[in-house]
Structures are given as C-alpha cells and as structure tokens.
C-alpha cells in the first residue's frame, strides 16, 4: 500500500497527512472481525473460569468474574464508552495484581502478622500440641503396621519385650490380638486390611490424628507412628479444651486462654508461641508514631533521604539528558557504539554491579584507592560523608542509562522546526536548550522525574547492597547508620534480629507512602501547568 502511495507523495505536510488518512480509511472490516474474535476468546475464557469456580464453589469470585465479563462486553459493544475501550485491559491487570498487593499490605498494617503470629489459630493449636508430645521416658520402640477396617485406621503393634501383637485405634486402647508374624513383627490380623507402606505414605493426616492410648490410664501415654513403621509412646504436656478455648499445661496446671491478642496467654501474661494472626486496629500505627527508638536518628535520616532522592534524580536526569543531546547529532561518528555502551550498566543485574563497586571502593585493597589514587587510604564506604557521596555515585551509574533512554525518546517529540525557527531568530544553542527544548522535554519527562523521586525515596535495595546503612551512628541504640534512608531504617526497627514484625513494617510503609504520595500529587499539580504550555 504505502509503496504505491509514497513516490507520488505530495510535498506539503498537510497534503501528506491527508493522503495517509485517506489510506487509513480503507481498512475497516478486519478490525471489527478482530474485535469480535478477541471478545469471543475473552468470553470463552470467562465461561471456562466460571465453570471451574463453580466446581470449587467460589461464589464471590465467580460473581466478580461474571460482572467483569459483562462489563467488558458492554464496553466493547457499546458505541459510547470510548475511553473505557482503551483503558479496560490495563486497569484489569492493575487492579488484580497491583491494587491487590497494596490492599493486602494495608490490611497487614492492621494485624499482628509477624514472627510468632504467622498463620491461623488452627495451625497454631496443632503446632503447639505437636511440639508438646514428650516421649515417655525409657519407653521402647514398637514395630508398627498400619491396618484398616471399614474406614477406621488402627495400629498393629508388636511389643518388643514380650513379642505379643497388640491392636488399637484412636478410641480403643491397645489390646492383645492373634496376628500373623513376619520376622518377629506382627504384619496382619483377621478382619483388618494391612496397608502397604506406599498407601500409608498417602495417609498423612489420618496417621497424624491416630494416637492410640496404651491403656485406660492416660498417664501411660499414647502410641503414635510418625513414619508409619515405628511407634513411640508419648504423653502430651499441653491439653487443648475446644469448648473453653484454652490450653492447659498438664505439668504445672497453668491455663493459657485466648484473650484476643492472638496467642494463648496465662494470667501472668506469659504467652504460648506460636500464636496466630488477628487484627489489632490502629495499634501498629500508634506504635509507629510513638516508637522512641527512631526519634534520635529520625531527623538526620529524613534529611538524607530527601537529599539522596533529589540528587539521585537530578544527577541521573542531567547526565542522561546530556548524553541524549550529545548523541543527537547526525554528524557525530560512532554514535551507535557509544549509545550501546551507555545502556550497558542497565543490562547487568544491579546487585552484581553494587558488589563490584563495593569491591572497588574498599579502603585498603580497592581499585580506586590502589590504582587510581596510587595507594591512598580514602575511606569511601566507611566515612559518613564519603559513604553518602559513594552511594550517590553508584546510584548515578545505575540510573543514568534509564534517563538516557527516556530522554532519547522524549527528544524525538520535539519538532525540529522549533529549533530552526530559534536559530533564525539568532538564539545560541544554550538559549535554545534552556528556553525551548528543556521546557518541551519536561512536559514529557517531568512525571517520570516525580516517579523516579518516589522510587529513590524507597530505594531500599541500593542502600542494603552497598553499605547496609553503615557506617553506624555511634549514639543511638538501634542499628541505624549514616546512609540509612527512611525505609531502610523502619525495616531495621520492624525486623530486629530474627523478629519480623510485618504489621509494624506495613504501618511504617503506609505512613511513608502517604508522605511520598502527597509530595508527588502536589508535584503533579505543578506539571499540569507545564502541560498547558503545549
């Protein structure tokens, strides 16, 4: 098509455009068919999904799927709703995968999720009871065969002392039976089916609940066979009373009750861990704002966070822009080669690069001190001020290729005739750049700068990989250092040692997000003014 049109292409821009539009007007039916085909596929997938969800009895999700499908069909068959036709696919993905994560994090901020409160109450109870099984002292190992009768499982046990066969179930204590023996081990008994080991392996849950009382006296313990072959006698040190919803320590008699804090707690406040997840209202937020340990370093860390984010954005943007402008000259040779080199830092895993940089900045052995500065002892990563400078240098290295690519693309949106007109008016290159190109460019890239600011504000990984926040402040009691930013500091508070307090961390995260979002929204307002220029 184009080939026949282009040689005779009219000379003026307007005419060229008109020709292209006329050409475009000649392909209608294919698109409609394609639209119907795509919608058919979407509907087919939806019908399949509804079917699957129906078999799983997931009614709420099913209703959502149906509603979304109906909405999608409406949007695409309707003659109105034009913007929705273009936005729907992206919004569906955004809601399912991003908004969900956001809401989940928000929800966790209102729970006690973290070390010791990791799962459900049911899991906590079963885990507590499992750990409370103590083997009866000096009791032998009993060879065991798992047997079944009408859906009831039993253990066929050989007494190692007497050689007798004993049979019992969860309800029926062990009693002597006549059994077939194989090599001194009872393997079968009349009326019961002996289960082969392969089958026993699939009966994990059944066997876990199969605790056979040794006798009528509970103090003799119960027999369990964790591997389906050997039985051991256990007594439990904890007892769970489902009606009272409390756990009793059988040795001390202490009662641990569910008092709504997500763990069984005794009267004196001792908790049995693991506990479980419960919602705790605004507790985490209250702790986040009243936490005294972050008071000391808070101001200096906040200042550094802003300095870090602003300088990172500015330095990467200006270097990227400079390079994009430098290579935006058709008379320059090797442009393509240079451009490839410029994006290379972006093509390697960031943690690898960070490690190399850390190695190069090593005080006594690093390349920078040893080779470039001829054996100097410059404490690149261990002096508070230099460590900050080093972080900014490494972040510049990691980030300028992104800005270079973005500026390279955005520059193409600036019409060349603007430039020519300005040259005619006698403007010098700097004036053209400052007065014309930069404002035009900012229309496109200003939102990216805001977003890049937000990214760096929370750039936990870089800090973690390069300095871990160090060098540490010497006058505070939490392990926070001179290069820690807000997000890395609050993680250190919420994740002390082996304790992971996801609830507290989420609350901190939400507070930081509110700060960043406010700054960003205000900035977006400003860029709106820029946009009107266009």
């Amino acid at each position, binding site marked *: 098509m184009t080939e026949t049109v282009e040689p005779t292409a009219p000379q003026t821009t307007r005419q060229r455009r008109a020709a292209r539009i006329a050409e475009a007007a000649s392909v209608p039916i294919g698109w409609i068919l394609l639209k119907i085909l795509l919608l058919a596929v979407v509907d087919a997938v939806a019908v399949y999904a509804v079917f699957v969800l129906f078999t799983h009895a997931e009614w709420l999700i099913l209703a959502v799927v149906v509603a979304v499908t109906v909405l999608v069909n409406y949007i695409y068959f309707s003659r109105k709703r034009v913007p929705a036709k273009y*936005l729907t696919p992206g919004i569906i993905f955004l809601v399912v995968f991003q908004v969900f994560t956001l809401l989940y994090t928000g929800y966790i901020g209102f729970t006690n999720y973290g070390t010791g409160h990791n799962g459900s109450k049911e899991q906590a109870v079963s885990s507590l009871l499992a750990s409370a099984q103590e083997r009866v002292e000096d009791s032998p190992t009993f060879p065991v065969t798992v047997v079944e009768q009408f859906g009831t499982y039993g253990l066929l046990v050989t007494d190692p002392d007497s050689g007798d066969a004993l049979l019992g179930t969860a309800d029926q204590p062990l009693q002597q039976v006549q059994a077939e023996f194989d090599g001194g081990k009872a393997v079968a008994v009349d009326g019961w089916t002996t289960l082969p080991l392969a089958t026993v392996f699939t009966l994990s849950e059944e066997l876990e609940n199969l605790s056979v009382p040794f006798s009528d006296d509970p103090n003799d313990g119960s027999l369990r066979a964790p591997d389906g072959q050997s039985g051991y006698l256990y007594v439990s040190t904890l007892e769970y009373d489902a009606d009272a919803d409390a756990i009793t320590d059988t040795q001390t008699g202490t009662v641990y009750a569910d008092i709504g804090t997500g763990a069984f707690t005794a009267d004196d406040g001792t908790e049995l861990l693991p506990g479980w997840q419960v919602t705790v209202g605004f507790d985490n937020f209250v702790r986040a704002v009243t936490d005294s340990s972050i008071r000391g370093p808070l101001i200096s860390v906040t200042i550094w966070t802003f300095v870090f984010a602003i300088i990172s954005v500015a330095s990467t943007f200006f270097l990227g822009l*400079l390079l994009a402008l430098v290579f935006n000259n058709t008379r*320059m040779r090797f442009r393509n080669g240079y451009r490839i*080199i410029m994006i290379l830092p972006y093509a390697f895993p960031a943690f690898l*690069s960070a490690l190399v940089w850390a190695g190069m900045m090593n005080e006594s052995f690093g390349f920078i001190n040893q080779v470039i500065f001829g054996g100097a002892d410059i404490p690149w990563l261990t002096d508070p001020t230099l460590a900050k400078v080093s972080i900014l240098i490494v972040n510049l290295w990691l980030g300028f290729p992104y800005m270079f690519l973005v500026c390279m693309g955005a520059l*193409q949106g600036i019409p060349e005739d603007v430039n020519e007109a300005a040259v005619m008016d006698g403007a010098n290159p700097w004036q053209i750049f400052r007065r014309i190109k930069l404002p035009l460019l900012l229309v496109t890239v200003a*939102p990216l700068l805001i977003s890049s600011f937000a990214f760096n504000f929370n750039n936990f990984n870089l800090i973690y990989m390069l300095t871990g926040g160090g060098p540490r402040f010497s006058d505070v009691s939490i392990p926070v250092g001179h290069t820690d930013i807000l997000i890395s500091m609050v993680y250190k508070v919420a994740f002390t040692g082996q304790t992971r307090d996801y609830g507290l961390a989420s609350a901190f995260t939400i507070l930081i997000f509110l700060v960043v979002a406010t700054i*960003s929204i205000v900035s977006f307002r400003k860029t709106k003014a820029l946009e009107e220029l266009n």
Partner: protein
Amino acid sequence: MGTTDTRVRRRSAGAWFADTGWRHVVAIVVSIFALFPLLYVVSASLNPKGTLTGSNQLFSAIGIDSYVRILTDPQNPYVSWFGNTLLIASVTGAVTVFIGACAAYAFSRMRFAGRRVGLVTIVVVQMFPQLLAVVAIFLLMSTLGDWFPAIGLNTHTGLILVYLGGALGVNTYLMYGFFNTIPKELDEAARIDGAGHARIFFTIILRLVAPILAVVGLLSFIGTVNEYVIASVILIEPEQQTLVVGLTKLVANPRYADWSAFSAGAVMAAIPVMILFLFLQRYIVGGLTAGATKG
C-alpha cells in the same frame, strides 16, 4: 553520508571540536565511567578460578572454562533460563507497550470524567513500597493456581500476568506526554474524513509515536529481564526459571559462590539486551535521522 564526511574533513580542527569533537570527549569520559565496573565482571568471567573483587589484577588469566561450565552444567540449565527470559521479557514488553499505548491514547485524546485523577492514580499506586508484595503475590498466585493451574505458580503465563499488572504506570505517563506532542489537528482532520477512534489510533497515532513505543518496550524488556523478587517466588523448578533467578543461586551462598560462572552468565545475558537496543535504536532516533537527511 559521503557528503557529510568530506564536509568534516574540510573544516578546521577548532570547528570540528566545536561541532562534534567535544561530543566525543564527553562520550569517552562517560564510556569509561560506564564500562569500568563491568571490566571486573568480564575479567571474572574469563578467570575460571578467580574471585570477583579479591584482586585488582584484571585479566590475569584468560580462559573460557566458565562459559563452557555454565552452558553445559545439567544442574544449571542456562539455555532454558535464557529461553525463558527471552520469552517472558518479549511477551511482557510487547503487551506492556500495547496496553500502555492504548491507555495513553485515551488519556491524551479523550476527555472524560476522572481523567486527571486516573492519570495520577496509576502512577501513585506504583509508588507504594513493595514490602509485602512477595507475600501477597504468592498468596494470589497459589490461590489462582488451585483453580487454574495454567496461570498459577511455576508457570510463565502466571509470571507474565503479574508483570502486566505494572503495564499501566509511569510508562503510560511517558507515552501520554509524547502523544501530547503529536498535533491534534491530525486526528481532527481524520475524523472529518470519517475515520473512527480505532482507525486513528492504529493507523495514524501509533506510527507517529514509534520512538516512545520503542523506548517503553526496551525499558519493559530490560526491567523484566532483571526482575528477581517476584520471579524467584513464582518460578519453582529450575527449568522454568529466568536468568537472574537461576544465576543468583550460583552465588547466593558466599561460601560456595561461583562468581566466575555467574559473571559468564551475566555477560551472555546482556547480549539480547544489546541486540534489542541495536534493533530498536532505528525506531527511537529514526524519525530524526530521516528528517535531518531529507531537510
């Protein structure tokens, strides 16, 4: 091009420097800055027994043992990782560009209630610190996988879908800004000729915004290639994993870290990115070149 060359030769050195010479100076200085740390990586990849940063004697030993080792070790299916990464990153990149361009078109050319708020929202949503993203994504994908195993854990499709959750975002804004630089008279003229919104989008606008599509595609591709956190949770079996996930396992335990094989793998992994850039570069700067030579 021939004419350009002779013109350069005729000019004096001073003029040459003022025009393009200084550009080379900038380019060389920044190239050294950009390349230097990577020399360590290349050097480590060529030294089969060496450490990554233990020595400043770069290229003290040269051999391709590590490349052979990483390519042939059955425990580390590098070739599968490579293929998986290309597939996942290409599909993610292409679909991201498409979804993002659609949204940018709507934001740029249509006026509807909630437009401004919508634009800001999609960017601000992605500023949320991803602290618990892994836990949330794992929960979501394992539940989805119970119902639809084809998009659950350990599937490429599932991972791509998660990545597409980020298709609307700051890239949409980048495209939106670029779309705005395309004169609206074009659409209006077409509309007067009876073209619908879809035809204007697919046949007129998309062509004019090719540079930004190429940039966004490249950004999305590189971003996907280097993504570790989500990929490491979703892709479980070694044969399903991506390059970063697979390679990271080689060095995760500092006591047994095989930096040489890791570096070799990382060097080879950078090649598709470079090829894609070479390929897309024409689109990114193509319009300008065409304009300049014609003018």
